[in-house]
């Protein structure tokens, strides 16, 4: 992307946010901004305006007015606009933030929140978003247009709350982070996009520790990316990763942000997760990790934000500190939890801890159960490989009737 296009992408949500604040009408405003962006692409190369944002805003407002003139409902809408109270002009950063909150409106499903955020705030095209989620463009276009219709009225007091915004940003990040190496070639880089959007949110809310912590969590997690997949695309667990491949710059920034978020005194789910990620990032090896501290952080996390997935991670940390039986005892508390009882991660963690206790038969059965339960191809390969390592007899050579391989 050229610098010029990057500028446009950064300005687009600011201009859209301002228009939606002034006029409501999310989809009409978006069309107007798209037209203004097209005008910029054709006109700016022959002379940049002094204030690109003001230029875009003026052109978009003109387009919006043109659209409304051509509609019979013009008068009614102008009257409604006149009644709208516009107190003081908030900053461009505030308008971007409000747009982000609007895209995370509670009436939208998570996948619609994600799609609308990437479209309106991220400035990605519908085709790019469709490709990232491996659905046809028509499907994604329909999802986005429905979402826009839902939030048509513009900003209200019912816009998404901060936790919803953070969850959407984290969903976008995870969608990119978990994508396999093969998918990287096709996918728009959702990880980088999530980090960029979280930086935007942080610029608007510098004193909100959960936003800072989420940014730290993303940077610390993403730092491991070069080490988390083998050349063949297989998943490499944390304990086996080559830590020299971790991105040191991201770790430095992530640890700094995590510490600053923790220093505010309060606690929050992202602060705790960032703190845990920071402990891992600073450990020279899996064996030298401060598991005691991680176990404490997970215990607090499962108290303030109880969730079976947190209990799973807590059980791993407890096993590292107190031994695998203590971890397994914690896992047993999840067997009656319908949210996770049949989840592959419960079976996978149990398999891992059973392997630690020295029970290869039970561990192998649990790995195979986990492999059957997951719908992720790389996870299934990983779990099957772990199970195969625990086979009592070496595997028989495959019966091939064709030439040897």
């Amino acid at each position: 992307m050229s610098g010029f296009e990057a500028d446009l992408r950064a300005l687009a949500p600011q201009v859209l946010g301002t228009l939606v604040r002034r006029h409501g009408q999310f989809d009409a405003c978006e069309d107007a901004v798209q037209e203004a962006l097209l005008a910029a692409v054709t006109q700016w190369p022959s002379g940049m305006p002094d204030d690109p944002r003001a230029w875009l805003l003026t052109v978009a407002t003109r387009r919006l007015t043109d659209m409304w003139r051509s509609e019979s409902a013009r008068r009614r809408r102008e009257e409604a606009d006149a009644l709208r109270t516009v107190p003081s002009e908030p900053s461009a950063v505030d308008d971007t933030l409000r747009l982000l909150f609007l895209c995370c409106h509670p009436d939208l499903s998570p996948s619609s929140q994600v799609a609308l955020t990437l479209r309106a705030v991220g400035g990605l095209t519908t085709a790019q978003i469709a490709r990232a989620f491996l659905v046809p463009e028509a499907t994604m276009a329909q999802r986005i247009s429905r979402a826009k219709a839902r939030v048509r009225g513009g900003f209200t007091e019912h816009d998404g709350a901060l936790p919803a915004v953070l969850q959407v940003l984290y969903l976008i990040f995870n969608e990119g982070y978990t994508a396999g190496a093969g998918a990287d070639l096709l996918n728009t880089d959702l990880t980088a996009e999530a980090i960029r959007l979280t930086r935007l949110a942080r610029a608007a809310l510098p004193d909100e520790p959960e936003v800072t912590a989420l940014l730290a969590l993303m940077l610390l997690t993403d730092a491991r990316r070069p080490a988390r997949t083998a050349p063949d695309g297989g998943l490499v667990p944390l304990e086996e990763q080559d830590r020299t491949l971790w991105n040191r710059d991201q770790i430095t920034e992530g640890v700094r942000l995590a510490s600053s978020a923790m220093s505010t005194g309060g606690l929050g789910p992202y602060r705790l997760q960032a703190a845990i990620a920071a402990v891992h990032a600073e450990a020279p090896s899996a064996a030298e990790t401060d598991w005691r501290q991680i176990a404490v952080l997970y215990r607090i996390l499962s108290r303030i934000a109880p969730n079976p997935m947190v209990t799973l991670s807590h059980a791993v940390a407890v096993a590292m500190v107190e031994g695998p039986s203590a971890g397994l005892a914690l896992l047993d508390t999840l067997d009656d939890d319908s949210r996770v009882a049949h989840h592959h991660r419960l079976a996978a963690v149990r398999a891992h801890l059973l392997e630690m206790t020295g029970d290869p038969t039970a561990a192998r059965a649990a790995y195979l159960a986990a492999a059957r339960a997951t719908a992720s191809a790389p996870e299934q390969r990983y779990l099957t490989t772990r199970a195969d390592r625990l086979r009592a007899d070496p595997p028989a050579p495959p019966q091939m009737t064709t030439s040897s391989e």
Partner: protein
Amino acid sequence: MKFLLMLHMNPSAWEALTEDERQAVMNAHEGFMAAIRESGEFINTQALADPSTARVVRVRDGVPVVSDGPYIETKEFLAGYYLVDCESQARALELAAMIPDAAVPGMGVEVRQIMFDAGMEM
């Protein structure tokens, strides 16, 4: 999450319906398709030709051997499918219940998740 909603045909159950009932089932697919297009969940749908037209290919000693008929000999057979992308398994089950074939006595719609190429570190 992507799911394949598989329409399994049970010929004796199907033949027990009146001509009008069969026509109603087929027509109702249009409504279902419109609903999942509108909701942004539709990816693809196909109906399959009759299993009597199926061929099975086996390669033995490098030589393809083609035989007539379906691979699995049962009275039920796969008649078609919808590929959808939706929020959760619960929603996929809800969609399956909207497919008219699911309401035919003796028939049902099978819901299977599509494998994906993304994974968490474990």
